[in-house]
């Protein structure tokens, strides 16, 4: 018998294993089937952050994970507790965020008997997790935790579910904590593919109108410096996907901003002209590229991604470089440095790109009101320190943030881009603030989306995790309203939220601070109040409900069909 073996119950084994992974906080809500693990959580050094709905626990863990690049942990009970986590788990999966979700399950001998609060969460979550474990014995717990964290944070990150039956939490056994685990079918990292990197360089250098398209993978692998060095060395303009926003400073002379459905006009215009794209860590989502066939027409694609299954899924790559993009870009830089090749910064392509950029930055027609989306978001950028972290909800405000809020400091902009989960931004901001208490965190919100998880105000206030909710309030489900105005001949249905609730009073009722800002001056002051406050601040900013997000590439069309403000 191994002398490292210790006798303990499953709940304690779980806490010890989590502590060994460096977990200091968990977001969760207790219930019948996870009481034994909560009892051990009580005795552990891990901080519990109580939520008011499990979906928010998952989003908080997600926000924590994206910012810290270590899995965020959320706890829920069986049945409805577990199913409430699902939206948050699917959101993390769609955006490759590291997360470990721990659910209670009914006792082993009750599984399959439709017990009270039993749900087959392993079956339900299968397509939305990177992996799921259901340990049936106490002895398995240390190993599945170790495996779970390893899977969640390596390669292309994602959510892992640990579903632990109640008796497995309660029973005692002799357990050991492995230093290493073996998974013969899991190979998250591959060697740097030098051959294809060389081919990529040749293709890039032989092209006349190249561009770099930086996706979310650039942020996940923190390839910020490498991306910037390559862009500057070759003087190639940079566009991003929406998820890639924040991978390249948007005030940089080579930056054109995000492409896509609500991309920058100049980015979409230029994207239709390029002959070669170096695509880094992107799945070529339909929201980024429009129709797949049109995007790849006349375009040579160099595709770098850690996930081999992304190569050729949505776009056909002429050169594919599989592997961690940071490592690949580093090798690319080394080879380029040896070549001592420098494209002159006066080349015709770049000159043209800059002309297009200057034109659209000067001539894009904006909403004329004082409290237009562009003006309020530019005010936020003006007042907010560059290192502050921004999350968004989902809807018009999110796309306005994409258009009008420049992400300057690397990895400071996060959004539910893949699943498009309304209600994500606020709890994610709380999770982000837990990961980075030293910087301000702002949730750029819309009223419809904030509505969905606004009870996280209780968590923010009572757990002393102050964030700012920058609530762009158009009293409606604005994006749906825009589509009804644009595609359904103004037959408006199901979009009017009236002025309910009053967000200032709502914030105050939770013990948070509520400020209504009706001018840019008031707004600037309110942001400063929020930045200096030690409680959550909701800034309610009423805007014109008729303001559309433009430019707009309609679904099922291509970037060249972009609709511009008239």
């Amino acid at each position: 018998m191994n002398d490292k073996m210790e006798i303990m119950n499953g709940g304690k084994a779980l806490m010890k294993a989590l502590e060994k992974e460096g977990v200091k906080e968990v977001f969760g809500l207790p219930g019948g089937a996870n009481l034994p693990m909560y009892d051990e959580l009580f005795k552990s050094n891990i901080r519990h952050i109580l939520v008011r709905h499990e979906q928010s626990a998952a989003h908080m863990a997600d926000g924590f994970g994206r910012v810290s690049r270590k899995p965020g942990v959320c706890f829920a009970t069986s049945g409805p507790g577990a199913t409430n986590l699902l939206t948050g788990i699917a959101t993390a999966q769609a955006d490759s965020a590291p997360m470990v979700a721990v659910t209670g399950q009914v006792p082993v001998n009750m599984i399959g008997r439709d017990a009270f609060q039993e749900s087959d969460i392993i079956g339900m979550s299968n397509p939305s997790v990177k992996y799921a474990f259901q340990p049936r014995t106490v002895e398995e717990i240390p190993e599945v935790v170790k495996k779970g964290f390893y899977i969640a944070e390596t390669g292309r990150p994602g959510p892992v579910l640990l579903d632990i039956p109640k008796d497995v939490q309660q029973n005692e056994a002799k357990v050991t904590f492995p230093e290493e685990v073996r998974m013969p079918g899991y190979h998250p990292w591959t060697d740097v593919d030098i051959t294809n990197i060389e081919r990529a360089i040749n293709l890039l250098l032989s092209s006349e109108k190249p561009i770099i398209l930086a996706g979310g993978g650039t942020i996940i692998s923190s390839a910020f410096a490498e991306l910037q060095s390559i862009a500057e060395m070759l003087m190639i303009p940079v566009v991003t996907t929406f998820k890639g926003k924040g991978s390249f400073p948007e005030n940089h002379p080579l930056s054109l901003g995000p492409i896509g459905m609500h991309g920058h006009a100049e980015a979409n215009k230029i994207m239709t002209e390029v002959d070669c794209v170096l695509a880094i860590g992107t799945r070529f989502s339909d929201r980024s590229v429009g129709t797949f066939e049109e995007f790849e027409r006349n375009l040579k694609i160099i595709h770098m991604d850690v996930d081999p299954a992304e190569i050729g899924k949505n776009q056909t790559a002429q050169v594919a470089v599989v592997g961690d993009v940071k490592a690949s870009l580093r090798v690319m830089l080394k080879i380029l440095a040896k070549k001592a090749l420098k494209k002159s910064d006066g080349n015709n392509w770049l000159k043209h790109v800059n002309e297009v950029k200057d034109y659209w930055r000067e001539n894009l027609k904006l909403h004329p009101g004082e409290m237009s989306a562009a003006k309020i978001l530019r005010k936020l950028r003006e007042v907010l320190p560059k290192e502050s972290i921004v999350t968004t909800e989902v809807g018009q405000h999110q796309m306005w943030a994409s258009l009008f809020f420049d992400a300057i400091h690397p990895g400071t902009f996060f959004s539910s881009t893949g699943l498009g989960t309304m209600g994500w931004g606020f709890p994610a901001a709380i999770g982000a603030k837990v990961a980075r208490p030293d910087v301000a965190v702002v949730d750029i919100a819309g009223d419809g989306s904030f509505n969905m998880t606004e009870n996280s105000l209780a968590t923010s206030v009572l757990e002393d995790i102050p964030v700012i909710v920058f609530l762009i309030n158009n009293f409606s489900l604005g994006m749906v309203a825009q589509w009804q105005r644009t595609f359904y001949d103004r037959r408006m249905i199901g979009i009017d939220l009236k002025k309910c609730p009053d967000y200032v009073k709502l914030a105050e009722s939770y013990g948070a601070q509520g400020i209504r800002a009706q001018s840019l001056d008031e707004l600037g002051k309110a942001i400063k109040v929020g930045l200096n406050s030690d409680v959550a601040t909701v800034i309610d900013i009423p805007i014109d409900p008729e303001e559309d997000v433009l430019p707009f590439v309609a679904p099922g069309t291509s970037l060249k069909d972009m609709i511009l403000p008239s």
Partner: protein
Amino acid sequence: MWAILSIRVENKPGILFKVTHLFRARNFNIDSISVGVMENPEFSKMVITTVGTEKQIAQIVKQLDKMIDTIEVKRLDEKESVYKELALFKVKLSDASDSAEINKLANTFGAKIHNEQENSLIVELTSTPDEIKSFEESIKSFDILDSARTGVTAL
């Protein structure tokens, strides 16, 4: 395009569910599936035949490979591998001469006769899906009361 995929997986519960779920969720088709434990009982071998474009099949292989439970995913070359399926047909015997005729047909295809009774018999044929199809065609003139197939397995 028809493809034979050979997938070595960890022999653990729930993996068949995950593999079939992957096909459904990614909008791929399963033409046939067969699973069995390997000589090392830690592993099982799944053989799945599927139909799709070249691009789709390449994507299926990559998605299967990405699964943590899969150890090895291979697309087998039809010409260089052995692929077989076992089929059973329960055939009605109406006339006195039927049995002899079916036996003759079975001989031609290398099939075996089982469970011969007064009114019916069972034919077992192990062959390629195409051969099984043509055998099925040739015994259709007799009444096929029931049939079952294992799906393709291959090496």
